[in-house]
C-alpha cells in the first residue's frame, strides 16, 4: 500500500484513492497516419519494465481526478518524486542521463 503525494491536492493520500495508468511519457504520435505498423505497435504495446527507476502515470481517481507522474523505484517501491503532467522528472536512471 503506497502513500502517494498528490501534487494537485498537495498532501499524501492512501493508494486506494489512486489508479496506476502505466508508463509515463508515451506521447501519442502527432501524425499517426505516417506511422508504420511497427511504429504504431511500439507506441501501443511496448513498455519498459526496469528494475529500479521508473516513471509512471497515475490518476487521483477518488480525489481530484487529475493525472500526474510518479518516479518510483520498482525494486524498493520508494516513490522518489511526483510531478505534474507536462513536467520532466528530475530523478532519472543512470543510463538515461
Amino acid at each position, binding site marked *: 500500500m*503506497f502513500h502517494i503525494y498528490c501534487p494537485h491536492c498537495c498532501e499524501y493520500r492512501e493508494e486506494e484513492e489512486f489508479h496506476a495508468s502505466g508508463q509515463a511519457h508515451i*506521447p501519442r504520435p502527432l501524425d499517426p*497516419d505516417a506511422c508504420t505498423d511497427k511504429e504504431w505497435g511500439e507506441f*501501443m504495446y511496448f513498455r519498459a519494465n526496469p528494475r529500479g527507476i521508473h516513471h509512471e502515470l497515475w490518476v487521483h481517481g477518488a480525489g481530484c*481526478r*487529475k493525472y500526474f507522474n510518479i518516479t518510483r523505484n520498482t525494486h*524498493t*517501491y520508494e516513490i522518489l518524486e511526483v510531478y505534474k503532467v507536462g513536467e520532466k522528472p528530475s530523478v532519472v536512471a543512470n543510463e538515461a542521463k
Partner: protein
Amino acid sequence: MTQELSKQSNRLQDGGRIDRSKPLTFTYNGKQYKGFEGDTLASALLANGVDIVGRSFKYSRPRGIVAAGAEEPNAIMQIGSTEATQIPNVRATQQSLYNGLVASTTNGWPNVDNDLMSWVGKVGGKMMPPGFYYKTFMYPKSMWETYESYIRKAAGLGRAPKENDPDIYDKMNQHCDVLIVGAGPAGLMAALTAARAGARVIIADEQNEFGGSLLSTTEALNGKPAAEWVAEVVEELSGFDDVLMLPNSQVNGYHDHNFLTIQQHCTDQFADRAPNGQIAQRLHRVRAKWVILATGAHERPLVYGNNDLPGCMVANAVSTYINRYGVAPGKDLVLMTSNDNAYRTALDWHDAGRNVVAIVDSRKNPQGTFVEAARERGISILVSSGVIEAHGSKRVTDVSIAPLNEVGDAIVGSVVKMAADTVATSGGWSPVIHLSCHTGARPVWNDDIVGFTPGVTVQKQLTAGAINGAFSTVQVLDEGLSAACDALAHLGLSKPDVVLPEADVIEEGKAMALFHIPHTKPTSKAPKQFVDYQNDVTAAGIELACREGFESIEHVKRYTAMGFGTDQGKLGNINGMAIAAKMLKQTIPETGTTIFRPNYTPVTFGAIAGRDCGELFDPKRYTAMHAWHVERGAKFEDVGQWKRAWYYPQGNETMQEALDRECLATRNSVGILDASTLGKIDIQGKDAREFLGRVYSNAWAKLAVGKCRYGLMCGEDGMVFDDGVTSCLAENHFLMTTTSGGAARVLSWLEIYHQTEWPELEVYFNSVTDHWSTMTISGPNSRKLLEKLTDYDVSKDNMAFMDWKPMTVAGVPARVFRISFTGELSFEINVQANYGLHVWKELFEKGAEFDLTPYGTETMHILRAEKGFIIAGQDTDGSVHPFDLGMSWAVSMQKPFSFIGKRGMQREDCVRENRKQLVGLKTLDPKAVLPEGAQGVLDPKAPIPMPMVGHVTSSYWSANLNRSVAMGFVKGGLDKMGEKVYYPLADGRVIEAEICSPVFLDPKGERQNV
C-alpha cells in the same frame, strides 16, 4: 479456592499475575478443567498437568507446549463452543482463558492421547523423509486429490466453521507519528518518551497485558518489582488523548511506505462470542510516519534426541509460566544451556520449591551473576556437557547427558542417565526480525549474539531492544529511549523530560554458539532431533537435503518445509541454518537466511473481510425508480454494481413467458424501460465538438443543435470498447451517453486524453449519470402516451427521429430524446432524478389505456437483437473493430484529425481477409435457439479438432418473429451471406444456421421513423 487449586496439580500456591479468586472453567478435548483469570489457555493446560497438546504433522508424535508466546509451534488449537464460532490455528499461548472456553487439538487424528497414526512415527521413521511429498505423492498424478485429503486430515491444519460466524469483525484506518510494536521495556520506554513529546502514538502488543518480559522477570526497576513500573507507565500513557494502546493486538504485516496491519482481539479474552454490540476482532490499517520495532527476541531451543517429547521446553517459557502464571510445569528439571541467561529458569524453578536435577552447561567455565546465584542455592552444574537425548513415551522420564568437546560437536566421555520430567533448554536468543523482513530487508548476522538482527530498510523504521541483540534490561530501556528520540528528531519534536528507571546490573559470561547437540550415533541414526516442530523437520532431514544437493538455504527450506506455514520459522530457523551451514562447511552468514513473510501469525478471514460481507459486500447501486420495480415484482440483474430490472414476471409466468409478453407489448403498443443507469457525461467548451471527433470513429463536425448521433468509441488499437448516443444540446454543449458498465471507463478515457495529450482543447467533462432519471418509452403508442403528459408538439414534423427537445413531462421539466434501441418509435425521457419516480408513476397513470408494459434488460436485449443492434461488451470483446461489426457507416476516415482507433484499425492484421465478422445467424429450425458462446464450423463432419470460424455472441427467442434470432462472428462472414454454418453442441446436437443480415426485423427502419 483450594478446591480449584487442588485440581491444578502444577499450580503454585502463590505468585504470578493470575487472580486465584476468579476461577474459570474450560473444556479441552471434551474434558472440563479449571483455570484462573489471567491465564492463557496454555498456562491453564500446564497447570492442569496436560502434557500432550497435539500430534506431529508427519510422524504423529505426541507434542507438548514448548513456548509461552507467538513462537509456540505445537499448541495450535481449534477454538469455539459452537459450529459458527470455530476458529482454527489459535496458539494456546496467545489465547486468554475465559469461562466456557472450548478448545480442541488441531493436530491428532483421531485423538491426541492414543493416535492410530503414531506407528508411522515409531516404526521405521524413514517413511516420511524430507521431499517425501514430492517423491511419493506426485505419482501417479491422478491420485493427488486422494493423497491431499488424507494428508490434510492427518496433518490437522484446522477446519473452517460450516456456519456463518455471528460475530462482527471490522477494520479501522489509523494514522500516527510513531507506531511502536511491542510493549516490553523498550516499547514502553519509547512510547512514554514519544507521548510526552506530544507525538501521536500507537503502541501494540500481542499479549493481553503490556509489559512483555517485565511481567515475568524477578528483576527490579527503581528498586520495586518491574511490574509496578509497567503499571505506572501504562497509567500515564492512558492519560494522553493521542496515544492509542492496543493490547491483545498482533502487528502482523509491515507493508510499503510504513503501512502496517494490526489484528486486535477485542473480545477474545471474554467469550466465545462477542458480547452484544461489540466488535470481536478489528484489523487496524495503520499509516505511521515512523515505526519502532521493539519486538524482542525468542529464545532458541537446543536440538537433541527426542527433543519433542512433552516436557521439553524453552527455558524462558518455563520461567514465564512460573513467574507470570504461577505454574511450574513439572517436578524435576534439567536445564541445558549455552549461556548465563537461562540460569534464571533454574533459579525460578528452585525458588518455586521444585527440584532442579542439574544445570547442564555446554561451556567449560561458566561464571556470572546468575551462575553464582545457582551455586549459592546448591544447584548441581555439569559443565562441558549436553543433554543428548530425552527418554519417555508421552512425557520425559529421563535424560541422557554426555560430556562435550570445547566446540560442542563431539561427545568426549561416557553418557549418564538422570531422571527428570522437564528439560528446559536455551541456545541463546533470536531477535524477532520478522516484521523487519516484511519490508524486504535482508537480516544481518551478528556473531556477538549468535543471531540475525534487522537489515537495512528503506522504510522509516527504527529498532530498539532485544531485536537489536540488546538483552539486558538496562540496555533495552536505553534503546527504547533513544529510538523514540530519533523518531522525535525526524518528526521535528523536541525530546521531553524522561529519566530511565534504574535496573539491576547483571553480569553475564560469554555465551557459546551451540545449536545441535551431537549424539553417540550419527545424526541419521540417532533418535529424531527436531529443528522445526510444526513441520516435523529434523536435523537429519536437513543434512539429507544438503547431501542431496540443495545448497541454497531457500531450497533447503522448500525441500524440507522448514519454516513453512503458520510457524514461519520462529523457533527453528536459526538452528536449521546452523545445521545446514555446518553440513555445507560454511558459516551461517554465508549460508544466509530465508525471509519471513506476512503474516506473522495467522489472521482470521473475519478480520480480513471486515464489514465487506453480506449486504455490504459490494455497493448496490439503485435508480430512483428502484422501489417501484421491487413492488412490481421485478427480477434484478447485476450490471456492474447497478441493480437493473431484468424482467417483470406476472403470476406464475416463467421467465420466457414474461419476456414474450414484454416483447410483444412493446412492439404492439408501448413498453417502458428504466434506462437511468446509462452513463451520461456533460461536455462543455468551445472544443467539445473537436474532442468528440477525436474520440469517436464517426463525424461530429456538422451535428446540429437539437440533434443526436450514435457513436462508436475505439481504443488506439482500433477495437470498439464502448458506444452510445451523444446529443448536441447547444453549440458548445453536448451530452454523451455510454453503456451502463462503461461509464467510469469512458470518463477516464476522455480525461486521460484531455489531461495528457490535448490539454490545449477547451473542454470540460462532468458525470451526470446519477443526476438524470432516464425512462424510455418504446412502441407504436409511445407518442400518444407522451402527448398525454406534455403540451409540447412531439409530432414527427416538430420532433423527428434523432431530435432532442426540452419540454415539460408530467409537470417536470425534461429533456426528451427521440432515439431508439428497439427499432420502434421511442422517446427517452430524462428528468432530474429526484422527480424520476414521480414521472415514472405518471407515465403508468396515463399509460394504462395503452397497456403500458414495463420491460427489463432481457427484453431490451431481445428487442435490440431483432434489430441487429450491438451491445458493446457482449457482441464485442476488445478484438473487433467497426468494420468487423459491419459498421463501416460509423467510421469516417476522411476526418482531418486522425481519430483514436483510425491508425490501429488499418494495421496489417486488421485489414486482412477472413477476419471474424459479425453477422446474423438464422437457424434452419426456427425453434432452435443457439447457445451464446457456441463455436461455429463450416464442415460439421470434419475430424476433431474442427476448425472453428467464430462464436455466437447474442441469441434469443423472438416472440415477435416467432423464431430464434442470433448474431455471431464468422470468419469472412460479411461475404458469406446465405451460406451455412454449423454449431456442434456438447449434447451431440448440431444446429445449422444460415448467415444473414443481423437485422431480422424492419430492415428499412420504418417503425422507428414514423
